[in-house]
């Protein structure tokens, strides 16, 4: 496998040194990965007093309430989306071997120059629960009871800004918004910033926390959600003939990216390389993907070229695969067209277990793709009992699949309402010379 990826003007190879997540499968990454590997569903009945009024009663709710892991006074001024972001970023930061606090008592690690630390962390929808909650307060109690924290809680850049504040990031804090492609786009933006030499290290990822009656009702009105209310664990079933929509999930996922030079200088453990990214836009329809899949294919082709890899190098694909009837079919065709007939790649749809984390999906699935290479095992696509006829990609249906030894590369796809297509390439290798 070639490792002459686009390194940008600064000539930097970008490596991944830390991982963290809080998901429907677990409150941290090890428990999440264990869930993915063992084919565990994170989807359940909502059990709130409001769900009876809706047509959808299931969701992929976070296993651990992020507010329960922080001081009450801190949690009350953070939208749940920011809480997930902080939990995932804190885990990734520690996983990268970095200290939570500088010797002067401020946030961060003494070895990290704040002016060279960047954050690129996205949410698809933002602080919707804070927005709607404050609207309720305004209507029932009037202006003088509206929290002065409402705006800093609801703004979509708040998760990124809170993470930047926690770790003292001063090289820029970015919060790209592209619906369900948001956190893959956040990763792609950080990759370029690091390659351009605008930072040495970045906290990247995504977060989403909109399990609330309004977005569930609205997504249900779009006919986008599964209504398999009686069998929550079987509701998310990418590529299965009986799929009927996605299952809304919540959580956060973060990675630490560094230039190889920076990582090696501090003796960091390296999981692999963020080798390339490709971004395209369909500009076909606001919510329907282009049925030809052209934009999806071009994003994957761009990502491969950016990584200086060929389709034959791809051993694994973590597909966007949300479990919608048309979306899964179009993506499978796009993947097949890009990888070609001789491909040995094993694809999977981890949303079968996690549900759809919207703005956090891209980061979580980039982590899943990386760990699949690192552990050499592809998590299963659960519930894929009756695959679509005519599928020409090899999918890890119902059971894990082992990956070969050696240097491996994987693709992660993320597509979002608005026609956003982002493909990310990771490898388990890095150039040592």
């Amino acid at each position: 496998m070639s490792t002459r990826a686009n390194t940008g003007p600064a000539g930097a190879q970008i490596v991944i040194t830390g991982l963290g997540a809080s998901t429907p499968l677990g409150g941290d990454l090890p428990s999440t990965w264990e869930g993915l590997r063992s084919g565990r569903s994170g989807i359940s009945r909502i059990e709130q007093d409001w769900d009876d009024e809706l047509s959808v009663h299931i969701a992929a709710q976070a296993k651990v309430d992020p507010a329960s892991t922080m001081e009450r006074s801190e949690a009350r001024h953070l939208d749940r989306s920011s809480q997930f972001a902080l939990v995932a970023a804190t885990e990734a930061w520690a996983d990268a071997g970095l200290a939570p606090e500088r010797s002067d008592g401020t946030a961060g690690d003494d070895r990290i120059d704040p002016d060279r630390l960047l954050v690129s962390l996205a949410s698809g929808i933002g602080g919707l629960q804070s927005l709607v909650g404050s609207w309720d307060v305004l209507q029932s109690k009037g202006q003088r009871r509206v929290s002065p924290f409402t705006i800093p809680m609801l703004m979509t850049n708040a998760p990124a800004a809170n993470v930047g504040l926690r770790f003292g990031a001063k090289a820029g804090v970015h919060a790209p918004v592209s619906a369900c492609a948001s956190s893959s786009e956040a990763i792609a933006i950080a990759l370029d910033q690091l390659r351009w030499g605008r930072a040495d290290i970045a906290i990247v990822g995504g977060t989403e926390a909109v399990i609330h009656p309004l977005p569930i009702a609205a997504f249900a009105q779009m006919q986008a959600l599964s209504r398999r209310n009686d069998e929550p664990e079987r509701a998310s079933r990418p590529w299965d003939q009986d799929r009927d929509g996605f299952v809304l999930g919540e959580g956060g996922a973060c990675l630490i990216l560094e230039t190889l030079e920076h990582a090696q200088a501090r003796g960091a453990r390296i999981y692999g390389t963020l080798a390339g990214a490709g971004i395209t836009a369909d500009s076909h329809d606001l919510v329907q993907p282009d049925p030809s899949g052209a934009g999806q294919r071009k994003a994957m082709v761009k990502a491969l070229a950016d990584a200086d890899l060929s389709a034959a190098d791809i051993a694994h694909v973590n597909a966007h695969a949300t479990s919608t009837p048309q979306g899964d079919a179009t993506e499978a065709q796009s993947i097949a067209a890009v990888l070609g007939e001789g491909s040995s790649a094993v694809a999977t749809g981890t949303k079968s277990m996690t549900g759809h984390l919207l703005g956090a999906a891209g980061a979580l699935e980039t982590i899943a793709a990386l760990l699949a290479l690192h552990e050499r095992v592809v998590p299963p696509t659960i519930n894929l009992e009756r695959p679509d006829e005519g599928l020409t990609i090899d999918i890890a249906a119902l059971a894990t699949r082992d990956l070969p030894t050696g240097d491996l590369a994987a693709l992660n796809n993320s597509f979002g309402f608005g026609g956003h297509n982002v493909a990310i390439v990771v490898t388990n290798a890095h150039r040592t010379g």
Partner: protein
Amino acid sequence: MATTEEIRADLAVIVNEVAGVAADDAQLDKSFVDDLNVDSLSMVEIIYAAEDKFGVSIPDEDSKNLRTVGDAVSYIEKALVSANA
């Protein structure tokens, strides 16, 4: 009628919930901003939580003069007295 200490203790609970200040730190002589590190947005929340808790009104033009915990406690005491008068 609530005593000064009862009002201080109740206010300390609010300051703890809003700003994470240990309840024992919120003593009468402590400045919200300088000693307890309460920021301006949290101060707004503390005022309206206090209004709800004690059933008094603390208009903005008065709340901005409440520099210390003691200032707030004596304001609330007076407001309660005039409410009961």
